[in-house]
């Protein structure tokens, strides 16, 4: 079992995400995180899916995804093959702000992106391990809410969408 990032380059058609996710459902594979966005090219979307599974399975998943008619290309990488980032938001009660917390924010390079009379919201971007570490610490500061995005990633391999739509 290993963590893999699957990249899917697709036409921007209705239902495409459903077509892709049912492939995982059918094989009983849990999607750890998923993000979808536009790509550099108009009309083409990219979906980034994070899964923890065997390489054998990830190959079959990618083959099945690529069979979806409106998918242009699907491929996968191990963590070493991608540059990736996640964003996490932490909501902390104002009453718990003190010097200790200030030090923690500085140490982790987190930012305060909103301040309201009752709470502040901290933001940290990084790998899951980093946002997780801050999460564990902030649990001691009356953490009110926590949210983390799926992985956004680009492959280290020097290929572009243009290579797939030639």
């Amino acid at each position, binding site marked *: 079992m290993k963590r893999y990032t699957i990249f899917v380059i697709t036409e921007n058609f209705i239902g495409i995400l459903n077509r892709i996710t*049912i492939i995982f459902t059918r094989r009983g594979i849990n999607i750890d995180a998923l993000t979808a966005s536009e790509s550099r090219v108009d009309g083409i979307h990219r979906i980034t899916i994070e899964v923890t599974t065997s390489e054998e399975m990830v190959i079959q998943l990618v083959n099945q995804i690529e*069979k979806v*008619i409106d998918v*242009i290309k699907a491929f996968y990488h191990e963590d070493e093959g991608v540059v990736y980032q996640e964003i996490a938001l932490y909501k902390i009660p104002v009453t718990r702000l003190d010097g200790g917390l200030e030090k923690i924010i500085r140490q982790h390079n987190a930012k305060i992106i909103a301040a309201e009379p009752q709470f502040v919201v901290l933001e940290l971007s990084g790998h899951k391990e980093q946002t997780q570490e801050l999460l564990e610490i902030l649990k001691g500061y009356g953490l009110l809410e926590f949210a983390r995005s799926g992985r956004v990633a680009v492959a280290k391999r020097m290929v572009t969408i243009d290579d797939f*739509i030639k």
Partner: protein
Amino acid sequence: MKDSMIRGADIVVESLIAEQAEIIFGYPGGAIMPVYDALYDYHEQIKHVLTRHEQGAIHAAQGYARVSGKVGVCLATSGPGATNLITGLADAQIDSTPLVCITGQVAAHLLGTDAFQETDVVGISMPGTKWNVQVRRVEDIAPAIAKGFYIARSGRPGPVLIDITKNAQVDFGEMNYTPCLGFRSYKVHLPVEKTAIQQAADLINKAERPYVLYGQGVVLGKAETELKFFLDKTGIPAASTLLGSGALSQDHPCFVGKLGMHGNYAPNLLTNQCDVLIAVGMRFDDRVTGDLKRYAKQAKVIHLELDPAEVNKNVKADVPVLGDCKESLSMLTEAVEKKSHPEWLAKFRELEQLEKEAVMQHDISPTKNGLTMGEVINQINQYKADDAVLVTDVGQHQMIAWRYFNYKKPHTQITSGGLGTMGFALPAALGAQLYDYSRQVICVVGDGGIQMTIQELGTIMQTKAPVKIVLLNNNYLGMVRQWQQMFFDKRYSFTELDNPEFIKIAEAYGIKAQRVNARGELTEAIEDMLIYDGSYFLEVMVEKEDNVFPMIATGCSVEEVRLS
């Protein structure tokens, strides 16, 4: 509005005509009524067959597609009409049958409101179609149908569903049909790589006990001649899968039998003794391989396959040869040395003898009073035409008919292989027959399966399709009963059937019918049926508790194939 504009419903029908569809199998209803209204005007250009149930329509379209190699077309209304297609879609998807199914849908402004007969058929059919789409605007109809036909018939064929909202059918638009010739996200198939051919040829040239397994891919790829030439040159023993039957004449000296759970003894057993396994257009279904951990482990595997997702899915290929097998087989034939394998072939014949004594003797020339399914098929062989099409349902009769039917020509085997859909045979036989009235179409069916779609006798009556229906009646759901006997201590849980008088049912539909109770009546009855000009219903009362052998039980290895 310009004069050149026509209704969306007319665009639907004209698009089908532009794709050279000859026949539509369908059933009308509210949301598809505009298209039915249009069909009224086009009845001279395109034929419509009214089945008695939408499941009948889609299985008929499958039968038509399988026998013709063309795209089967099916029409249904929204809601229940659409959901009744689902079994057929799943069946066509797993058996790679090209279909275009058009369903009506509630008007676009009602979508998502639980309107009358509204169902999310695009959502429901997503996993069971090669592609599906909802069309909500008249201008999108023709491009969707063009794309649908292209997807259904190209690459690895499959079913397509196009859901058209009622407003799109009644709105007016321009008809200028442009056939689809491809689009960027869809690769039909990869080109055959020369290096892969060379690697495969090297393995084959060095092999002492090479073995060919061929599947429906050969038929779908129209590569029957290429397969024959390859075998003529290499002399390699070849066995067929269930759906591959017919791709090679059984008279060919290299033909050694059929593979799988109820296939022949030698072809299964010797899979684990070959040194090079050449799989052509087949997908190593679990019914073929048995326990994968003990499947052909000693062999180098060459896999000629169009669909990249099938390579290394179940069996790891040492040399995958991706691409169209029509191309790869002829390239491979060029690259291999002329050879023969008499000793290796003799081994198959030797084991075949064992099967003859232990199984076939009983099946074909029984000593007991009761009729066997095997002797019925054997008698059919004596009188059938070389290109007679065998259409079967699912269960014991299917396995027996397949085992004993003498396949000589392509497109003669129509059965529900992957999905195992009971109720498939009767409508599929109708569809196959409507492609060619002059062709002998023999529908072999069990007493369980026929009752799942028996209403299609009505369609056979109305179309006067001269289908020959052979009902092998053992008053049991025979295959389930066999499993209950073998693996569940003979606890016959809900498998015995109290059946109606089938002859009367057939006669009520105006179909000539006859029942055979004893051996002495069989030959003449089959002869009568096959020469009869028109549809014919022959019920044969067979042994109640007979079993199909050989058998590879679930979880067993191919080498554990049992003769009793």
